[in-house]
Protein backbone atom coordinates (compact mmCIF):
# COMPACT_ATOMS: atom_id res chain seq x y z
CA UNK A 1 0.00 0.00 0.00
CA UNK A 2 2.14 2.87 1.35
CA UNK A 3 5.23 1.26 2.90
CA UNK A 4 7.21 4.46 3.24
CA UNK A 5 6.66 8.18 3.59
CA UNK A 6 9.28 10.87 3.18
CA UNK A 7 9.46 13.47 5.95
CA UNK A 8 12.17 16.17 5.71
CA UNK A 9 14.13 14.01 3.28
CA UNK A 10 14.06 10.95 5.57
CA UNK A 11 12.38 7.76 4.40
CA UNK A 12 10.22 6.60 7.29
CA UNK A 13 8.32 3.33 7.40
CA UNK A 14 4.54 3.58 7.69
CA UNK A 15 4.79 0.75 10.19
CA UNK A 16 7.01 2.89 12.42
CA UNK A 17 4.50 5.75 12.29
CA UNK A 18 1.61 3.45 13.17
CA UNK A 19 3.73 1.94 15.97
CA UNK A 20 4.34 5.43 17.33
CA UNK A 21 0.61 6.18 17.29
CA UNK A 22 -0.01 2.82 18.99
CA UNK A 23 2.60 3.58 21.68
CA UNK A 24 1.08 6.98 22.48
CA UNK A 25 -2.51 5.70 22.67
CA UNK A 26 -1.47 2.65 24.73
CA UNK A 27 0.55 4.81 27.15
CA UNK A 28 -2.39 7.18 27.63
CA UNK A 29 -4.79 4.29 28.25
CA UNK A 30 -2.41 2.58 30.73
CA UNK A 31 -1.48 5.72 32.66
CA UNK A 32 -4.82 7.52 32.75
CA UNK A 33 -7.40 4.75 32.60
CA UNK A 34 -6.27 1.27 33.66
CA UNK A 35 -4.06 2.52 36.52
CA UNK A 36 -7.17 4.09 38.16
CA UNK A 37 -8.30 0.64 39.26
CA UNK A 38 -5.20 0.06 41.39
CA UNK A 39 -3.44 1.93 44.16
CA UNK A 40 -0.37 2.88 42.15
CA UNK A 41 1.43 6.10 41.27
CA UNK A 42 0.77 7.23 37.66
CA UNK A 43 4.46 8.15 37.32
CA UNK A 44 5.44 4.56 38.12
CA UNK A 45 3.02 3.28 35.48
CA UNK A 46 4.58 5.63 32.92
CA UNK A 47 8.15 4.57 33.77
CA UNK A 48 7.15 0.91 33.74
CA UNK A 49 5.58 1.52 30.33
CA UNK A 50 8.92 2.88 29.07
CA UNK A 51 10.77 -0.16 30.45
CA UNK A 52 8.16 -2.39 28.80
CA UNK A 53 8.63 -0.52 25.52
CA UNK A 54 12.40 -1.13 25.58
CA UNK A 55 11.80 -4.78 26.50
CA UNK A 56 9.22 -5.07 23.70
CA UNK A 57 11.64 -3.81 21.04
CA UNK A 58 14.57 -5.90 22.25
CA UNK A 59 12.45 -9.04 22.65
CA UNK A 60 10.84 -8.68 19.22
CA UNK A 61 14.23 -8.14 17.62
CA UNK A 62 15.89 -11.04 19.47
CA UNK A 63 13.20 -13.50 18.37
CA UNK A 64 13.49 -12.17 14.82
CA UNK A 65 17.27 -12.76 14.93
CA UNK A 66 16.70 -16.25 16.36
CA UNK A 67 14.25 -17.18 13.58
CA UNK A 68 16.38 -15.66 10.82
CA UNK A 69 19.71 -16.87 12.19
CA UNK A 70 20.47 -19.10 9.16
CA UNK A 71 19.95 -16.15 6.75
CA UNK A 72 22.08 -13.85 8.90
CA UNK A 73 24.85 -16.48 9.10
CA UNK A 74 24.70 -16.84 5.30
CA UNK A 75 25.18 -13.08 4.95
CA UNK A 76 28.20 -13.19 7.29
CA UNK A 77 29.74 -16.17 5.45
CA UNK A 78 29.20 -14.45 2.09
CA UNK A 79 30.77 -11.27 3.48
CA UNK A 80 27.58 -9.27 2.76
CA UNK A 81 27.77 -7.19 5.92
CA UNK A 82 25.66 -4.37 4.50
CA UNK A 83 22.80 -6.79 3.74
CA UNK A 84 23.23 -8.35 7.16
CA UNK A 85 23.02 -4.93 8.82
CA UNK A 86 19.86 -4.06 6.88
CA UNK A 87 18.29 -7.42 7.70
CA UNK A 88 19.22 -7.11 11.34
CA UNK A 89 18.22 -3.52 11.94
CA UNK A 90 15.44 -2.99 9.43
CA UNK A 91 14.39 -6.58 8.80
CA UNK A 92 11.52 -6.93 11.18
CA UNK A 93 10.15 -7.69 14.60
CA UNK A 94 8.28 -10.72 15.91
CA UNK A 95 5.22 -10.03 18.02
CA UNK A 96 5.63 -12.90 20.47
CA UNK A 97 9.22 -11.84 21.20
CA UNK A 98 7.85 -8.36 21.91
CA UNK A 99 5.20 -9.80 24.23
CA UNK A 100 7.69 -11.69 26.37
CA UNK A 101 10.09 -8.73 26.23
CA UNK A 102 7.33 -6.45 27.53
CA UNK A 103 6.65 -8.75 30.48
CA UNK A 104 10.39 -8.96 31.19
CA UNK A 105 10.69 -5.15 31.06
CA UNK A 106 7.84 -4.78 33.57
CA UNK A 107 9.43 -7.40 35.81
CA UNK A 108 12.80 -5.61 35.75
CA UNK A 109 11.10 -2.30 36.69
CA UNK A 110 9.05 -3.92 39.46
CA UNK A 111 12.11 -5.67 40.93
CA UNK A 112 14.39 -2.61 40.67
CA UNK A 113 11.99 -0.17 42.31
CA UNK A 114 10.18 -2.58 44.60
CA UNK A 115 6.74 -2.20 43.05
CA UNK A 116 4.14 -4.94 42.74
CA UNK A 117 4.79 -6.75 39.45
CA UNK A 118 1.26 -8.17 39.52
CA UNK A 119 -0.27 -4.67 39.55
CA UNK A 120 1.89 -3.51 36.63
CA UNK A 121 1.08 -6.71 34.77
CA UNK A 122 -2.68 -6.31 35.31
CA UNK A 123 -2.45 -2.74 33.95
CA UNK A 124 -0.39 -3.81 30.93
CA UNK A 125 -2.47 -6.78 29.74
CA UNK A 126 -5.49 -4.95 28.21
CA UNK A 127 -3.16 -2.45 26.51
CA UNK A 128 -1.34 -5.18 24.53
CA UNK A 129 -4.18 -5.98 22.07
CA UNK A 130 -4.86 -2.25 21.62
CA UNK A 131 -1.21 -1.63 20.68
CA UNK A 132 -1.18 -4.70 18.46
CA UNK A 133 -4.39 -3.71 16.69
CA UNK A 134 -3.03 -0.30 15.66
CA UNK A 135 0.42 -1.67 14.78
CA UNK A 136 -1.12 -4.29 12.49
CA UNK A 137 -2.57 -1.50 10.34
CA UNK A 138 1.06 -0.48 9.89
CA UNK A 139 1.78 -4.01 8.62
CA UNK A 140 -1.01 -3.54 6.09
CA UNK A 141 0.44 -0.22 4.95
CA UNK A 142 3.92 -1.72 4.71
CA UNK A 143 2.62 -4.80 2.93
CA UNK A 144 4.32 -7.24 5.30
CA UNK A 145 2.64 -10.16 7.14
CA UNK A 146 0.55 -10.66 4.01
CA UNK A 147 -1.87 -13.50 3.32
CA UNK A 148 -2.12 -16.34 0.86
CA UNK A 149 -3.48 -15.89 -2.65
CA UNK A 150 -7.23 -15.38 -2.36
CA UNK A 151 -9.81 -14.27 -4.90
CA UNK A 152 -12.88 -13.94 -2.67
CA UNK A 153 -14.52 -10.99 -0.90
CA UNK A 154 -12.13 -8.49 0.71
CA UNK A 155 -9.01 -9.59 -1.12
CA UNK A 156 -6.32 -6.92 -1.45
CA UNK A 157 -3.89 -6.28 -4.28
CA UNK A 158 -0.59 -4.65 -3.31
CA UNK A 159 0.99 -2.44 -5.94
CA UNK A 160 3.88 -0.74 -4.16
CA UNK A 161 5.56 -2.79 -1.46
CA UNK A 162 8.92 -4.49 -0.97
CA UNK A 163 7.31 -7.37 0.94
CA UNK A 164 4.03 -8.74 -0.44
CA UNK A 165 3.47 -10.34 -3.84
CA UNK A 166 2.63 -7.49 -6.19
CA UNK A 167 -0.45 -7.57 -8.43
CA UNK A 168 -1.91 -10.77 -6.94
CA UNK A 169 -5.12 -10.72 -4.82
CA UNK A 170 -4.14 -11.68 -1.28
CA UNK A 171 -6.01 -12.58 1.91
CA UNK A 172 -6.03 -9.46 4.19
CA UNK A 173 -4.48 -11.17 7.25
CA UNK A 174 -3.19 -7.87 8.65
CA UNK A 175 -6.60 -6.19 8.68
CA UNK A 176 -8.36 -9.26 10.08
CA UNK A 177 -5.78 -9.60 12.87
CA UNK A 178 -6.12 -5.89 13.58
CA UNK A 179 -9.91 -6.20 13.84
CA UNK A 180 -9.64 -9.33 16.02
CA UNK A 181 -7.21 -7.55 18.35
CA UNK A 182 -9.57 -4.59 18.63
CA UNK A 183 -12.44 -6.96 19.53
CA UNK A 184 -10.20 -8.67 22.13
CA UNK A 185 -9.31 -5.24 23.55
CA UNK A 186 -13.00 -4.28 23.78
CA UNK A 187 -13.80 -7.56 25.57
CA UNK A 188 -10.96 -6.97 28.05
CA UNK A 189 -12.02 -3.33 28.46
CA UNK A 190 -15.62 -4.27 29.26
CA UNK A 191 -14.66 -7.08 31.67
CA UNK A 192 -11.71 -5.23 33.27
CA UNK A 193 -13.54 -3.95 36.33
CA UNK A 194 -15.17 -7.33 36.94
CA UNK A 195 -11.86 -9.24 36.72
CA UNK A 196 -9.84 -6.58 38.59
CA UNK A 197 -7.00 -8.01 40.67
CA UNK A 198 -7.20 -11.47 39.12
CA UNK A 199 -5.39 -13.22 36.29
CA UNK A 200 -8.70 -13.71 34.44
CA UNK A 201 -8.04 -10.75 32.10
CA UNK A 202 -4.67 -12.25 31.23
CA UNK A 203 -6.18 -15.72 30.75
CA UNK A 204 -8.88 -14.29 28.50
CA UNK A 205 -6.26 -12.51 26.39
CA UNK A 206 -4.04 -15.61 26.16
CA UNK A 207 -6.93 -17.81 25.03
CA UNK A 208 -8.54 -15.36 22.60
CA UNK A 209 -5.32 -14.18 20.99
CA UNK A 210 -3.75 -17.65 20.72
CA UNK A 211 -6.85 -18.95 18.91
CA UNK A 212 -6.86 -15.92 16.59
CA UNK A 213 -3.15 -16.16 15.79
CA UNK A 214 -3.13 -19.94 15.41
CA UNK A 215 -5.98 -19.75 12.87
CA UNK A 216 -4.62 -16.75 10.98
CA UNK A 217 -1.20 -18.37 10.60
CA UNK A 218 -2.81 -20.83 8.12
CA UNK A 219 -3.75 -17.86 5.94
CA UNK A 220 -0.33 -16.20 6.09
CA UNK A 221 1.52 -16.12 2.81
CA UNK A 222 4.98 -14.88 3.88
CA UNK A 223 7.60 -17.36 2.80
CA UNK A 224 9.77 -17.66 5.90
CA UNK A 225 7.54 -18.67 8.80
CA UNK A 226 10.07 -20.64 10.85
CA UNK A 227 8.27 -23.98 10.36
CA UNK A 228 8.80 -26.66 13.06
CA UNK A 229 7.00 -30.04 12.57
CA UNK A 230 4.42 -28.58 10.20
CA UNK A 231 3.51 -25.61 12.36
CA UNK A 232 5.00 -22.12 12.37
CA UNK A 233 6.95 -20.72 15.34
CA UNK A 234 4.01 -18.44 16.18
CA UNK A 235 1.60 -21.40 16.13
CA UNK A 236 3.76 -23.29 18.62
CA UNK A 237 3.90 -20.22 20.84
CA UNK A 238 0.10 -19.87 20.44
CA UNK A 239 -0.35 -23.44 21.72
CA UNK A 240 1.81 -22.63 24.78
CA UNK A 241 -0.11 -19.36 25.32
CA UNK A 242 -3.44 -21.20 25.10
CA UNK A 243 -2.29 -23.74 27.70
CA UNK A 244 -1.12 -20.89 29.96
CA UNK A 245 -4.56 -19.26 29.59
CA UNK A 246 -6.37 -22.47 30.53
CA UNK A 247 -4.05 -23.06 33.54
CA UNK A 248 -4.67 -19.48 34.76
CA UNK A 249 -8.46 -19.91 34.50
CA UNK A 250 -8.33 -23.23 36.38
CA UNK A 251 -6.08 -21.66 39.06
CA UNK A 252 -8.34 -18.63 39.45
CA UNK A 253 -11.47 -20.79 39.70
CA UNK A 254 -9.73 -23.00 42.28
CA UNK A 255 -8.80 -19.93 44.35
CA UNK A 256 -12.44 -18.75 44.28
CA UNK A 257 -13.68 -22.25 45.29
CA UNK A 258 -11.12 -22.48 48.13
CA UNK A 259 -12.26 -19.11 49.48
Amino acid sequence: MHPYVTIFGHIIGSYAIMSFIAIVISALMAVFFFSKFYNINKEDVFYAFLFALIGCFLGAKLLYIFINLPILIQYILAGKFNDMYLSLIRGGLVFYGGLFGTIFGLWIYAKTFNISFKTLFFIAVPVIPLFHSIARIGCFLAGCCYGIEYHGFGSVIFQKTPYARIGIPLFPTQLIESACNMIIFLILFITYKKFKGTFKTCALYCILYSITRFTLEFFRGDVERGIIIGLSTSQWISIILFIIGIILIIKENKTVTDK
Partner: protein
Amino acid sequence: MAVGSLVLGIVGIVFSFIFQPIGLICSIVGLILSIVARKKEPSGMATAGLVCSIIGLVLNLILVIACGACIGAAGAGASWLNSIS
Protein backbone atom coordinates in the same frame (compact mmCIF):
# COMPACT_ATOMS: atom_id res chain seq x y z
CA MET B 1 23.49 10.04 36.93
CA ALA B 2 21.16 12.91 35.92
CA VAL B 3 23.95 14.60 33.93
CA GLY B 4 24.78 11.28 32.26
CA SER B 5 21.16 10.76 31.27
CA LEU B 6 20.96 14.27 29.78
CA VAL B 7 24.20 13.78 27.81
CA LEU B 8 23.11 10.37 26.53
CA GLY B 9 19.67 11.72 25.65
CA ILE B 10 21.19 14.51 23.55
CA VAL B 11 23.67 12.09 21.94
CA GLY B 12 20.72 9.79 21.18
CA ILE B 13 18.85 12.61 19.41
CA VAL B 14 21.94 13.60 17.40
CA PHE B 15 22.74 10.02 16.39
CA SER B 16 19.14 9.39 15.31
CA PHE B 17 20.00 11.43 12.20
CA ILE B 18 23.45 9.87 11.70
CA PHE B 19 23.55 6.22 12.81
CA GLN B 20 20.43 4.94 14.54
CA PRO B 21 21.79 1.80 16.26
CA ILE B 22 24.16 3.92 18.37
CA GLY B 23 21.43 6.50 18.94
CA LEU B 24 19.10 3.74 20.09
CA ILE B 25 21.60 2.36 22.60
CA CYS B 26 22.37 5.87 23.97
CA SER B 27 18.67 6.68 24.30
CA ILE B 28 17.87 3.41 26.08
CA VAL B 29 20.75 3.82 28.55
CA GLY B 30 19.90 7.52 29.01
CA LEU B 31 16.26 6.65 29.68
CA ILE B 32 17.13 4.05 32.31
CA LEU B 33 19.58 6.43 33.99
CA SER B 34 17.09 9.30 34.03
CA ILE B 35 14.36 7.12 35.56
CA VAL B 36 16.76 5.86 38.25
CA ALA B 37 17.92 9.45 38.89
CA ARG B 38 14.36 10.76 39.14
CA LYS B 39 13.35 7.97 41.50
CA LYS B 40 16.34 8.62 43.77
CA GLU B 41 16.29 12.40 43.74
CA PRO B 42 13.95 14.29 41.37
CA SER B 43 15.78 17.18 39.72
CA GLY B 44 15.42 19.40 36.66
CA MET B 45 18.48 17.79 35.09
CA ALA B 46 16.99 14.29 35.45
CA THR B 47 13.70 15.48 33.95
CA ALA B 48 15.55 17.07 31.03
CA GLY B 49 17.46 13.77 30.58
CA LEU B 50 14.18 11.85 30.63
CA VAL B 51 12.57 14.11 28.01
CA CYS B 52 15.66 14.05 25.74
CA SER B 53 15.97 10.26 26.07
CA ILE B 54 12.28 9.74 25.22
CA ILE B 55 12.60 12.01 22.15
CA GLY B 56 15.80 10.19 21.15
CA LEU B 57 14.20 6.77 21.65
CA VAL B 58 11.12 7.68 19.59
CA LEU B 59 13.19 9.23 16.77
CA ASN B 60 15.57 6.27 16.63
CA LEU B 61 12.78 3.72 16.72
CA ILE B 62 10.83 5.51 13.99
CA LEU B 63 13.88 5.74 11.75
CA VAL B 64 15.08 2.20 12.47
CA ILE B 65 11.84 0.27 12.15
CA ALA B 66 11.04 -0.31 8.51
CA CYS B 67 8.61 -3.12 8.95
CA GLY B 68 7.56 -4.81 12.11
CA ALA B 69 5.70 -7.77 13.50
CA CYS B 70 6.62 -9.85 10.50
CA ILE B 71 8.80 -12.88 10.28
CA GLY B 72 10.91 -13.08 7.19
CA ALA B 73 10.81 -10.77 4.19
CA ALA B 74 14.20 -9.57 5.37
CA GLY B 75 16.01 -10.33 2.15
CA ALA B 76 13.38 -8.59 0.03
CA GLY B 77 13.33 -5.61 2.36
CA ALA B 78 17.11 -5.39 2.41
CA SER B 79 17.51 -5.47 -1.37
CA TRP B 80 14.65 -2.99 -1.82
CA LEU B 81 16.21 -0.62 0.69
CA ASN B 82 19.54 -1.06 -1.08
CA SER B 83 17.96 -0.19 -4.40
CA ILE B 84 16.34 3.02 -3.12
CA SER B 85 19.31 4.22 -1.05
